[in-house]
């Protein structure tokens, strides 16, 4: 029997797959390339993705200013949930590869967050190209910088996690020309808002005489006036994304910002945390109290410290003399358990075990289970 069981277990172990990606993903986050934390097993056990990966940069990138890049994933079949994890990185080593290590800052990722790793659900297939936009702030020091796009996804048949990384893309970050109209270095756009709320955005600019905002909803682009550096985006009725950009004019060349995305979402779930914590404490005390209140009844209750009977029935002088004897007698009579079998205690049993479990043993004997 044991050999059969061991054989079955061994066959079950052999039938397991080596690794698989978490089918639901791990969520957007700031993550290194080492599988971006989304796989169960080592990245060395992954398959190689057949995706063609690319990053498109704008022609001019100025140090410390905002810019938009496009990442593309082309020609790959993924698992049935059509999800792919996408990360922008500064090297392919799997360590110290976060964009922040080179001074890049993710202002808006494709999902409206500020992460370098996002999980995208789209129509990934061998015939499609899936493109996403990222808004970044360039490093503050001019120079040449490296950038990679890495992906991980499941395979159509499941079982193996696939990962891939693009070829090196080098970009030149230039020094900012004098008098260039620009958004202030410490200004960041609003990425999310609740449904039904109009959004007032305050622009902070440098070297700018006037600003015009363009709002893109679907394919339609409209202009919004900027008053005292502020403009208002009307409230959203349904969850979705609107995009806007600002055109800055001044003494220097006119500048157009990248498209900023504003994601409208339903208001988050809220709860009165004080009431929740108080109810938790109440439940703990109430449950404990209810269980403890259920007192043991009758002889089941071991009155460990109750010697009232002996004190009330015996004279004081004999009580001291007989104390040891009394305790022994009490143990052997009141809690003695069922009568011992003719052969004495069963093999391996102690007297205490017989007191508590003897009756159960006799019942089993009577039923022929032993």
């Amino acid at each position: 029997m044991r050999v059969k069981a061991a054989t079955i277990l061994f066959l079950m172990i052999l039938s397991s797959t080596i690794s698989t990606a978490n089918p639901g993903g791990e969520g957007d986050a700031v993550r290194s390339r080492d599988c971006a934390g989304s796989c169960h097993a080592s990245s060395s056990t992954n398959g190689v993705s057949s995706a063609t990966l690319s990053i498109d940069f704008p022609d001019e990138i100025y140090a410390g200013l905002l810019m938009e890049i496009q990442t593309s994933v082309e020609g790959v079949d993924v698992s049935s949930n059509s999800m792919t994890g996408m990360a922008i990185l500064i090297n392919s080593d799997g360590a110290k590869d976060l964009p922040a290590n080179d001074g890049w800052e993710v202002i808006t990722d494709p999902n409206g967050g500020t992460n370098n790793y996002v999980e995208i659900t789209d129509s990934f297939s061998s015939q499609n190209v899936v493109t996403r936009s990222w808004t970044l702030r360039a490093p503050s020091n001019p120079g040449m910088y490296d950038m990679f796009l890495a992906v991980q996804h499941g395979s159509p048949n499941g079982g193996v996690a696939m990962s891939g990384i693009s070829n090196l893309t080098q970009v030149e970050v230039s020094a900012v020309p004098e008098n260039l109209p620009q958004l202030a270095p410490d200004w960041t756009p609003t990425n999310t808002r609740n449904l039904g709320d109009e959004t007032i955005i305050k622009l902070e600019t440098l070297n700018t005489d006037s600003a015009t905002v363009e709002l893109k909803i679907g394919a339609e682009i409209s202009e919004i006036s900027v008053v005292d550096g502020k403009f208002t985006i009307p409230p959203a009725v349904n969850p979705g994304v609107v995009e806007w950009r600002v055109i800055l004019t001044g003494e220097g060349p006119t500048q157009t910002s990248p498209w900023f995305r504003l994601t409208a979402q339903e208001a988050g779930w809220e709860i009165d945390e004080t009431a929740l914590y108080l109810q938790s404490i109440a439940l703990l005390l109430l449950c404990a109290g209810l269980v403890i209140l259920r007192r043991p009844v009758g002889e089941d209750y071991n009155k460990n410290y109750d010697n009232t009977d002996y004190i009330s029935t015996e004279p004081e002088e004999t009580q001291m003399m007989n104390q040891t004897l009394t305790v022994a007698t009490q143990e052997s009579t009141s809690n003695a358990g069922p009568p011992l079998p003719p052969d004495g205690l069963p093999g391996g049993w102690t007297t205490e075990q017989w007191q508590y479990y003897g009756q159960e043993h006799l019942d089993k004997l009577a039923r022929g289970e032993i």
Partner: protein
Amino acid sequence: MISSGTLHVIATELTIGMFALSGIAFLLCLLKKGPLSREAVAHWALLGGLMATPFAIFTGLNAAPGEGIENPLLANKMLLSTASAGLAIGILIRRKWGGDVDSRHASIGMISVALMLTTAGMGGEYSRNETLLYFVPKETVFLFPIWASILLIVLGVVMLGKSAVEHRR
């Protein structure tokens, strides 16, 4: 250094492992089957799981993204885990005070274990959006008003105090 998420996994494994062992031992107590050590195993494993529970709760709160409790699953996890801990404390104190391990005692122990396992199952749904607890109404939080919770706290303290006094007699 390890992240709160990893620490939460460690604390959860400890808690759930010991609660599951305790649940099996309580089941044997209920059926009156199995080795004689089942009672000791049930209560000691429950104690071990109970000691690991606060670590699991606090590391879980730290590991949750965002600030505070922003999901009904988290609120229900909080309520279920404290209810389970309360039952476990009651079971252990009752046994310590000499209570017999009868069928009701074993059943309450199993309920405590079931609540804790449900809590863990909801954690899996929160982090991976996968669950086997399809029919449990996890998106609804039954929250008392504060005055009612305070009343229940007073009631619980009175019950505990009454039990302690009666036990001394």
